């Protein structure tokens, strides 16, 4: 079970791209076994502190361990999958 959090700052192109990319990869490789939470820091700035968010967009994989942060619009699929510790099927 993957718990993923995507931090964005409003509806910028990078954020939209990242979200769509993320959904795509998750459907491909983790069918049904994931949850995506989108946190908009413009509305909830105090949440940036908890996960030490600097860059936008940032994808944080909380579960399973280890905690991983992937920053960028997630256009590089290889790196995203490596970062999420997912073996491509």
């Amino acid at each position: 079970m993957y718990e993923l959090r995507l931090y964005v700052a409003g509806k910028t192109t990078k954020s939209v791209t990242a979200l769509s990319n993320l959904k795509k990869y998750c459907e491909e490789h983790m069918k049904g076994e994931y949850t995506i939470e989108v946190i908009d820091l413009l509305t909830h700035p105090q949440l940036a502190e908890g996960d030490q968010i600097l860059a936008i967009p940032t994808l944080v994989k909380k579960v399973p361990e280890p905690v991983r942060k992937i920053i960028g619009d997630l256009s590089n699929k290889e790196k995203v999958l490596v970062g999420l510790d997912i073996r491509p099927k």
Partner: protein
Amino acid sequence: MSDTLTPIFNNQNQLNILHKTPTGISGLDQITLGGLPTGRPTLICGSAGCGKTLFSLEFIIRGAQEFNEPGVFIAFEEKAEELAVNVASLGFDLNKLQEDKKIKIDYIHVDRSEIEETGEYDLEGLFIRLGYAIDSIGAKRVVLDTIENLFSGLSNQTILRAELRRLFQWLKDRGVTAIITGERGESSLTRQGLEEYVSDCVILLDHRIINQISTRRLRVVKYRGSVHGTNEYPFLIDEEGISVLPVTSLKLNKPVSSESISSGIDALDDMLSKKGFYRGSSILVSGTAGTGKTSISSSFANETCNRGEKCLFFAFEESPQQIIRNMHSINMDLQKHVDNGLLHFYASRPTLYGLEMHLVAIHKAIRKFKPSVVILDPITNLITVGTVSEVKAMLVRLIDFLQEEQITVMFTALTLNTVINEQTDEGVSSLVDAWLLIKDIELNGERNRGLYIMKSRGMQHSNQIREFVITDKGLDLVDVYLGPEGVLIGSAREAQMLLEETGQVLHTHAISRKDRELLRKRKVLEGKIESLKTEFESTEEELNKIYIEEDLKKEIMEQTRQKVTDIRRGNNSPE
């Protein structure tokens, strides 16, 4: 809010005032003529351990405590709890300040191993966090310490540099006064070249070891829009935070006083036409070892305290207890003044700090204690931690500062040869207003001390070398003793005095003898006169007797003739 305003003209020739934010760090506000530029970022760079974090922390804390400006401290290296512990030793309570919403400390952690960079991104998260922190307490001051950590965490330099540029512009737009710290680079001011982006004001901190002594220095490399001191200023970090050595004015327009204060030795005061030294002047007492310089300076301190004024005694050679004990043996009770709080000793070995540190420490002590008289005994030891020219420079600054405050200062200096080098004494002799020399005079197999006023600006002084004695009743200058061959001192003087005394006794004795003889002669004469008188009287009587006899004879003859005449006539009767 306290501001210092410096006018600058923009292109339309209208006056644009450059506001400055005071830091509260002692000495720095003087060097920058008001503080850091308001609403602009300042770069502080230095190598590891220079004091950058402490500097920026003090800026925030003092801003909150003294100037009522809340501040945000973004730490990239230490966690908030660690920072709180580190500054607790300085007396700053970070936790309370955070609770009172005067300060916000945010720890931003960048761990390379956790991050995977995929595609385009920006650092909006940082901006959001910063914005949130500033807005939550209404901060006017911000510190980013040290932002170069971002470079080690994120590898895309292009994005990073672009975002940094954007960040500093964002800070300016927000109107916060920011301090950015950076590590010193090899070829550039900072390792990552932050000075490209933050160039309104750049301050360089330095930590050097010279002759095994560490010195910290600060230099304002650049300050757009304002005049600033461009030299290197030493500073020290102690239990109250950072103290930068304040600037001494380069103009020679100090206030002066005509009041004179006693030196504590009456005979010395008599040698000066104003009966003492001018208040606010500087006095040098020099002499070879064991000539009594510390005694003279202690006597000056004693006199100051007796007048009810405060005196600060910097002892660089003897411990305060030693001085008190030694002065007690010549009838000076310094312990009483220490107990009353009028006399304060500050003792340290010169080799403990560098020269500049000494100056800063002296400044601090003077500012804290606010004495009216300062004594430095001796200044010669300072040579061991600096060259002659450095010591002279330091003393110039000290004298400048003290004159400004109208504090009288007395230095004692050891002259190394018995032949007094009258030209320089660590080069100080030309700076001071009064110079007392204690010479060792060797004559007839013994040494005595002679005190001589070499110079005293602004008043007449005696040009005699007086004999300086230290007895258990105190210090004294013995009167000049003129013998038949010239001035005499020491045992020769005693001998001559004795001789003259004997002569005097004999002289009186002789005179009394003559007196008696005279008396006797007079008596004899008087006797003679008496006898002559009686002789005269008897002769007189004789003469008188003869007169009387003659008279009697004449009378009788008259009588007889009368009688005879009568008888003759009686014979012619008729019947």
